[in-house]
């Protein structure tokens, strides 16, 4: 009996050694030749399918699946079918790194889509550089995802193999400040921000500087930490202040509670937020009656009257029996964006694909038409959605 265990142990150890040896040594050249000679083109899918941000990941993958299905039905790319290799990074950066290593070195993919969140996506970029295989995120909105920034936030060096197709946080902050000032005519604002998230801090910073440069005044600034549930202290304090709008950068789980508690205390001022508000849970937490005069910037609106968007909503409904949200749309665009680049590259070679991605001009997606700039960011418009009784009632393209 003992011998059996010994043999098993020895076998698994040597297998592990063999595999690591392969992964470490064969990196770049294996990746580039991996799938080009097959009948299919392999694309890696590295998303949050379980864990804290699973709703973002699984929504994105639904969009990707639909896009690839449509592309394959229309004959594939370069005459070949696309094969997705899907994996779950459990919403953890370490898992995201090891999964992308596996996809690039073992499965021979030509590009990897995802992860959806900034932290996890950043964790895969060194692996992408090492294996020289492009990675694309549909929803990592931090400013420094695809480019290194100096202390003042100016771009220094672009990350060669990293791309994103969503606008940056700074852009959302600037947009909402412009919106508050010109569309709502606000001159005094209060900021309540999630002090535990880079996302919210970045949004608040850009909102503040833009709003002040437009002649507005920030009359109060309060902070909370993700996971808090009692905001009555800060809201009671705010209630006695004189202001026109509340800017609330943060995620839906706290934003929903803050809006509810604010409305309960009789604060009726408009509430402004960003794409972190985009979740059905916001409505559940705040309740329909509290969600009036709430505005947030988003990547996509289901109220868009562009025929491509209407077609997408129809197709999505037929496939999944529900209306697509922003992450569905971003996932869909990410897959289409990559396939468009492979087509233009003329061959399923990661380096050629990377160059094609970088030179994308006016790609028409359901989240807007965009080109990729020198920092691998898209140049695209942002949508501001207005909620009335918890439902989107108006979308304003900016």
């Amino acid at each position: 009996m003992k011998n059996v265990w010994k043999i098993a142990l020895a076998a698994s150890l040597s297998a592990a050694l063999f595999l690591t040896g392969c992964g470490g040594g064969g990196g770049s050249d294996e990746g580039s030749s991996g799938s080009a000679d097959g009948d299919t083109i392999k694309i890696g899918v590295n998303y949050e399918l379980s864990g804290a941000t699973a709703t973002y990941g699984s929504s994105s993958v639904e969009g990707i699946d639909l896009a690839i299905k449509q592309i394959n039905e229309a004959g594939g790319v370069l005459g070949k079918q696309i094969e997705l290799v899907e994996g779950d990074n459990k919403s953890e950066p370490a898992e995201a790194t090891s999964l992308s290593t596996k996809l690039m070195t073992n499965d021979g993919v030509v590009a990897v889509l995802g992860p959806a969140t900034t932290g996890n996506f950043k964790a895969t970029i060194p692996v992408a550089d090492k294996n020289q295989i492009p990675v694309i995120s549909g929803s990592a909105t931090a400013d420094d995802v695809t480019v290194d920034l100096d202390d003042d936030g100016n771009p220094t060096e672009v990350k060669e193999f990293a791309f994103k197709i969503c606008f940056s946080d700074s852009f959302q902050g600037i947009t909402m400040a412009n919106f508050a000032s010109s569309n709502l005519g606000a001159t005094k604002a209060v900021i309540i921000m999630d002090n535990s998230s880079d996302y919210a801090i970045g949004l608040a910073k850009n909102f503040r500087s833009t709003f002040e440069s437009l002649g507005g005044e920030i009359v109060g600034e309060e902070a909370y930490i993700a996971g808090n549930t009692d905001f009555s202290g800060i809201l009671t304090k705010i209630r006695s202040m004189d202001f026109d709008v509340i800017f609330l950068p943060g995620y839906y789980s706290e934003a929903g509670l803050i809006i509810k508690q604010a409305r309960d205390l009789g604060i009726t001022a408009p509430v402004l937020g960003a794409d972190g508000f985009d979740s059905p849970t916001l409505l559940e937490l705040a309740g329909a009656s509290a969600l009036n005069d709430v505005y947030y910037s988003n990547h996509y609106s289901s109220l868009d009257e562009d025929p491509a968007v209407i077609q997408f909503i129809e197709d999505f409904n037929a496939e999944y029996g529900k209306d697509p949200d922003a992450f569905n749309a971003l996932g869909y665009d990410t897959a289409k964006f990559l396939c468009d680049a492979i087509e233009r590259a003329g061959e399923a070679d990661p380096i050629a694909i990377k160059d094609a991605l970088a030179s994308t001009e006016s790609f028409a997606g359901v989240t807007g038409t965009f080109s990729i700039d020198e920092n691998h960011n898209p140049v695209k418009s942002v949508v501001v959605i207005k909620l009335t009784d918890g439902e989107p009632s108006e979308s304003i393209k900016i």
Partner: protein
Amino acid sequence: MDQLLQQLLNGLSLGSIYALIALGYTMVYGIIKLINFAHGDIYMLGAYIGFAAITFAHLSFIPALLISMAACAVLGMVIEKIAYKPLRHASRIAVLITAIGVSFFLEYTTMFFVGATPRAFPQVLGSQFFNIGNVVISMQQIYIIVVTVILMFMLQFIVHKTKTGKAMRAVSIDQDAAQLMGIKVDSTISFTFAIGSALAGAAGILVGIYYNTINPLMGMTPGIKAFVAAVFGGIGNIPGAMVGGVSIGMIETLVAGYGSSMYKDAVVYLILILVLLIKPSGLLGKNTREKV
């Protein structure tokens, strides 16, 4: 003035919740000298049981509250039987570590079954508001305060006027002597866990209704804050837990309202450190001399 009254009201609602949880800590500590770290998670389970009773069985507030309290009482007794009773004569650190283990077990088992995403709690109390001057009182706040006061009176009655209460007090003073007097120590301890857990269950469902959100890790921070409240009031002392809970709730709200919202948690833990340094027996705790 209006703002101060509003803040005090907010603090009282939050403090009532802390007080209900702190009572469980203090009672268990009083009787077997164990800091039951799993207590915050019983509060979380109380919220989920209430959620299930309201969503799936379509019950109204009072029946859901009673079911949640009863289920938590049973759960408290089961945890005591399985995890703590076999360690009755082990060192205190062993029991403490077991309590932390039970806490993680409850948190992550719940997460496995219900998922990690926060859920919105059904609104069974409606959303009525009463305006007194510029002070807004919500129906939920009235319920929280009224239910807390009723439960505290019931607890005082049980501890001071019933035979079981007498047994509890006797066991907390001297376990061996109580046993010699014919008191069933095991069932008395079990009963203490049941009452403490029932109060935590009540706090769970009240929090669900008040804040409208529950998640499997919701017991962590309030659990620790309630522990601070129990120490503040004097651990092992029932009126102390009530006073401590309400004080911590008030302090937290006032710091957020008049100081900076970033420091409210820091202030709470600073209080814990100060109490431990200056008056380790707490606000209402008696100074007991170590028996030699």
